[in-house]
C-alpha cells in the first residue's frame, strides 16, 4: 500500500499542473516565487502537529466536545445574556446551503440577491419586532451593537459622556468602554432609581429586561433622557419583545439587542448577531451594513448595499464605523427563525418562558434558605439568594447533572441568576427545585 499521504483534498493542482504553470510564469520552482522574502526569514519552520486525516480528526473533535458538560445532555438554567431557545430543525439546512454559507459580502448585487433580500428581510423583521423605524443588517453581537449605539448617540448629539444604568449586563458595559473610551468619551454607571444625567450626556443606556431579569420604569428613563437632550438607548431581549411593549413604544431612540436569542446556538460565545435599530432620522448615522431596495435597468425590484457600502474604502479614517465583515449568516438564521415562529409562535414562546420562569421562581422562593432578593416584574430570569455561595451551589448542581445559573454574588450576596425558558420542561424545573432543596 502507498506510504505517502494523499495530496490535499483542497488543492486541485498536481505536480504536472505546477510544472506547466511554472513554465508559463518563467520560474523554475515554487520556492523562487518567495524570493522577495529575505533569506534569513524564509522558511522558518512551522511547529504544527502532523495532519490528522478527516476520519481521525472527527473522532478527536467529538471527544473534545464530549469533554464539555453541556445543555445537550443536561438541564441548564444559565442565561445571563445568552439564551437557550428551541430552534426548528428546518433552519440549519437552509442557512447552511452553500449559496448562503460560502458567498461573499454582496458587493455585486446582480449575483447576490439572495443575501441582499435576506438582509432586507432581517431589517424588516427586526424593525418590526423592536417596533422601531429602521434597522441595519446586523452587528457583531449584542454588546458591540450597544457600544456602537453609544458611539452613534455621541455623533448625533455631539456630546461625549455616556450614562449606563448599573443594571446593564456588566460585559456590555465593558464593551461600551472598549469602544468609546479611546475616543475620549466618558462612560459612567448610574442608578436606575435616580439616574444622573449631565448637560453633556449623549445618552442614557438601559437594558430591557435588565441584567437581573427585571423591568425598569422604561418610560420614565426615556422621558428623563429626552428632557436632558440625551438619547434613550436600550438593549432589548428579542424574545421578551414578543410579549412586552417594544422600545419603539416608549420612544426609545436607538434600540439594540442580542440576536442570539432568536434560535442561534450558544456555541460558547459566538457567532451571534447584534440587532441595531433606530429612528428613521438617524439613518445616515447608522454603523455597519444596510441593504436598500431599488430597481435595475429594466425596472425590476432589487436590493443593494446602500448608504455606506464599503465606506471605509472611501471615507477611511472618517468612516462611521470600522465594521466590515459582520455576521450576515447569523442574521439570516435569525430571519428564518422569525419567519417560522411568526406572530403567534414567538409570542407563544415568550409566554412559555414567562410561565415556566415564574413557576420556578415561586417554587424556589418556598425553599428554606432561599429567597428572591429583587422584587418587581421579571420575564424569564430572576436572582435567587442561596443559603451557600453561588459557586458552591453551582458545583453541587453539576454533580446532580444540572447546569446552574450565573454567580452574581458581587451584587447580591450568595446570589445566583437563574434563567428558565421554553426548553426547560417541568420535570427539569422540579429536579432543579429538589436539588436546590438538598443543597441548602
Amino acid at each position, binding site marked *: 500500500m502507498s506510504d505517502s499521504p494523499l495530496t490535499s483534498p483542497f*488543492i486541485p493542482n498536481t505536480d504536472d499542473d505546477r510544472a506547466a504553470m*511554472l513554465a508559463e*510564469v518563467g520560474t523554475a520552482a*515554487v*520556492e523562487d*516565487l518567495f524570493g522577495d*522574502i529575505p533569506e534569513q*526569514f524564509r522558511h522558518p519552520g*512551522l511547529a504544527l*502537529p502532523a*495532519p*490528522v486525516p478527516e476520519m481521525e480528526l472527527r473522532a478527536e473533535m*467529538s471527544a*473534545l466536545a464530549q469533554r*464539555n458538560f*453541556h445543555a*445537550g445532555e443536561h438541564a441548564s438554567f*444559565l442565561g445571563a445574556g445568552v439564551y437557550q431557545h*428551541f430552534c*426548528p430543525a*428546518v433552519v440549519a439546512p*437552509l442557512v447552511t446551503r452553500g*449559496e*448562503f454559507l*460560502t458567498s*461573499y459580502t454582496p458587493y455585486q448585487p*446582480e449575483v447576490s440577491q*439572495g*443575501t441582499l*433580500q435576506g438582509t432586507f428581510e432581517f431589517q424588516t423583521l427586526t424593525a*418590526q419586532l423592536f417596533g422601531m423605524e*429602521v434597522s441595519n443588517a446586523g452587528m*457583531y*453581537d449584542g*454588546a458591540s451593537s450597544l457600544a456602537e449605539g453609544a458611539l452613534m448617540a455621541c455623533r448625533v448629539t455631539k456630546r461625549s459622556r455616556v450614562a449606563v444604568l448599573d443594571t446593564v449586563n456588566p460585559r456590555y458595559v465593558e464593551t461600551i468602554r*472598549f469602544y468609546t473610551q479611546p475616543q475620549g468619551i466618558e462612560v459612567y454607571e448610574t442608578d436606575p432609581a435616580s439616574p444622573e444625567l449631565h448637560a453633556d450626556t449623549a445618552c442614557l443606556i438601559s437594558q430591557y429586561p435588565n441584567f437581573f431579569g427585571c423591568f425598569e420604569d422604561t418610560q420614565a428613563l426615556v422621558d428623563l433622557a429626552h428632557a436632558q437632550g440625551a438619547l434613550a438607548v436600550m438593549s432589548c431581549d428579542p424574545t421578551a419583545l414578543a410579549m*412586552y411593549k417594544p422600545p419603539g413604544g416608549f420612544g426609545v431612540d436607538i434600540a439594540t439587542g442580542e440576536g442570539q436569542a432568536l434560535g442561534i446556538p450558544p*456555541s*460558547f460565545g459566538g457567532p451571534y448577531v447584534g440587532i441595531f435599530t433606530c429612528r428613521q432620522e438617524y439613518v445616515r448615522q447608522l454603523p455597519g451594513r444596510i*441593504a436598500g431596495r*431599488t430597481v435595475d*435597468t*429594466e425596472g*425590476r425590484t432589487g436590493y*443593494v448595499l446602500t448608504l455606506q457600502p464599503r465606506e471605509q474604502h472611501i471615507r477611511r479614517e472618517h468612516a462611521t464605523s*470600522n465594521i*466590515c*465583515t459582520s*455576521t450576515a*449568516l*447569523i442574521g439570516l438564521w435569525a430571519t428564518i427563525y422569525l*419567519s*417560522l*415562529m411568526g*406572530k403567534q409562535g*414567538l409570542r407563544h414562546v415568550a409566554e412559555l418562558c414567562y*410561565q*415556566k420562569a415564574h413557576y420556578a421562581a415561586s417554587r424556589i422562593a418556598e425553599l428554606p434558605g432561599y429567597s428572591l432578593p429583587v422584587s418587581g416584574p421579571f420575564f424569564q430570569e430572576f436572582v435567587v439568594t442561596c443559603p451557600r455561595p453561588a459557586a458552591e451551589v453551582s458545583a453541587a448542581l453539576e454533580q446532580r447533572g444540572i447546569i446552574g445559573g450565573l454567580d452574581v454574588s458581587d451584587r447580591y450576596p450568595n446570589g445566583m441568576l437563574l434563567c428558565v425558558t421554553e426548553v426547560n420542561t*417541568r420535570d427539569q*424545573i422540579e429536579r432543579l427545585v429538589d436539588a436546590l432543596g438538598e443543597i441548602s
Partner: protein
Amino acid sequence: MTSTPDTPLREEAHNRRRLLMERSHPGRTGVTLPASDVPPQLIPEQAMLRDDLHLPEVTEGEVVRYFTHLSQLNFSIDTNFYPLGSCTMKYNPKLNEAVAATPGFALAHPAQPETQVQGCLEAVFRLQTYLQEVSGLPGASLAPLAGAQGELAGILTLRAALDARGEGRRRKMLIPDTAHGTNPASAAMAGFQVISVPSTSEGDIDLDAVRAEADEQLAGVMFTQPTTLGLFDRNAIEMCRIVHEAGGLVYGDGANMNALLGRAKLGHFGFDVVHMNLHKTFSTPHGGGGPGAGPICVTEALAPFLPGPIAVQREDGSYGSEMPTKSIGRCGGAQGNFGVLIRALTYISLLGGDGMLNISGNAVLNANYLLAKLRPLFELPYDRSVMHEVVFAARKRPGATALNVSKRLLDHGFHAPTMYFPLVVPEALMIEPTETESRETLDAFIETLERIDAEAAADEDFLRGAPYETPISRLDEARAARRPELRWRPSED
C-alpha cells in the same frame, strides 16, 4: 432561444421574490410548539404587554421554498470562482461545519464554569498556540469578532502599551496609501491621528516618508504584509526598524497571511501586533458577510494588554480562561466567535504544517500564473513577481473599465475581482485566485477575459450593458442611497 412572450414569466419571477410580509396570511404558522406544562402563573400587567407584533405568518414549506429560491440567486464559492482580491475566497471544507455543529460545542454556554467547558477551552488554547506559531508572536487573543475588530483591539493593545510606558503623547499612526480602508477607520476609532504614507513606484513603502514622521509623536504604523498590491514589501523590515527606533510600535494587518503560511513569520520582521482573518486564511465560510474572527497575536511585551479572555493551561493540565493583567478589556459580550475558531482549528489540524506550506505555495503560484497570462490584456502597474494576488489596471480599452469587465464576468459565472482598490491603482482589478482553484478554472477565467476583451474591441458599448444573464441587471445604487427604502412597510402592501 425561440421568441417567447415573457410577461407571465416575469410575473412568476416577481412572485418568487415577494417578501415575507407579502406572503403572510393570518393564522398560518411554521412551527408546532408545546403547551405550558406548569400551573398557570399570574399574567403581567396589561400596560406592559404589546398588541402589535407584526411578524410573518407562513408555513414551513413556504419558508423552505422562499429561502431555497433566494439562495439560488447568489453566487458563492460552492458554485463559482471568486477571484476577489484581498478576500481570500478559498474553498471551505465541509468538515468544519460538521465539527462546529457537534452538540458538545454548539450547546456549550459561554458563562459556564471552567470545569464544565474543558473541551471548548482546550480547543481555544490549541488554536491560540497554532496562531502564535504561524505569526511568530508569543501572545494571542482570540476574542476579536472580525478582522476590523482585531485591528481595533490590536491597535488599542498597542496604545495601552505606549500609555503604560508613559508615552500617551504618541498619537500619530502612519498608514500606507495602499492600506485596506478598515485600517484608517480602526486607527481613528482607537483615537489616533491617521497619517497616510505613500508607496514608491515599485510598490514598496516610501521609507523617507516614514522617516519624516519618525518623531516623539509617532505611535506607530499599520502595515499590511504582503501589501494589498499583492507584493511582498521589501522595505517593510527597514520600516519596522525605523519605527521601533523612533519609539513606535508596528501593527501588522495579517489579512494576507495566505501568502506567507510557513514561508515567513510576521513576528520575525518586527511586527508587534498582527491580526489574522480566520474567514480568509483559515477557510471559515464567509456567510455572505460574516461571521468571521480576527484573532490578534502580539509580542511578549504587549501580551499583558491584550483583550480577553484568553485561554490558559493550568499546571494540573486543565484549561482556564483569564483576563490578561493589564487587559484593555472585552470587545464583545462573550469571548469570541468560538464557532468560527473551532472551524479554523479543524482546518489547521486537518492539514498540519505541511498543509500550510502547500497552501501558500499554490496560492502564490496561481496568482503568478494569472499575472503571466493576463499581462497582455491589462496594464500592470507594478511589474514584479507577486504573492497571493495581482493588481491590474483596466486601462487598455475604452469601455472595458474595471467595472464593465467585472460585470461581464458575472455573465460567465465568474465573480468580479475586487475593483477600484487599492486606491493608488486607477481602474484597479485586484485578483486573488487562492490555492483551491484549479488550472482549468484559471484557464477558463483567462479565456473569458480574452473574450471580453474581444467584445470590448468589437463594440465599445457592449460591456456597459453587462451583466445580461444574471437574475437582475445593473441596479440603481444612486436611487437606493437618495431615497433609502430599508425595510418593507405595511403601507406598501
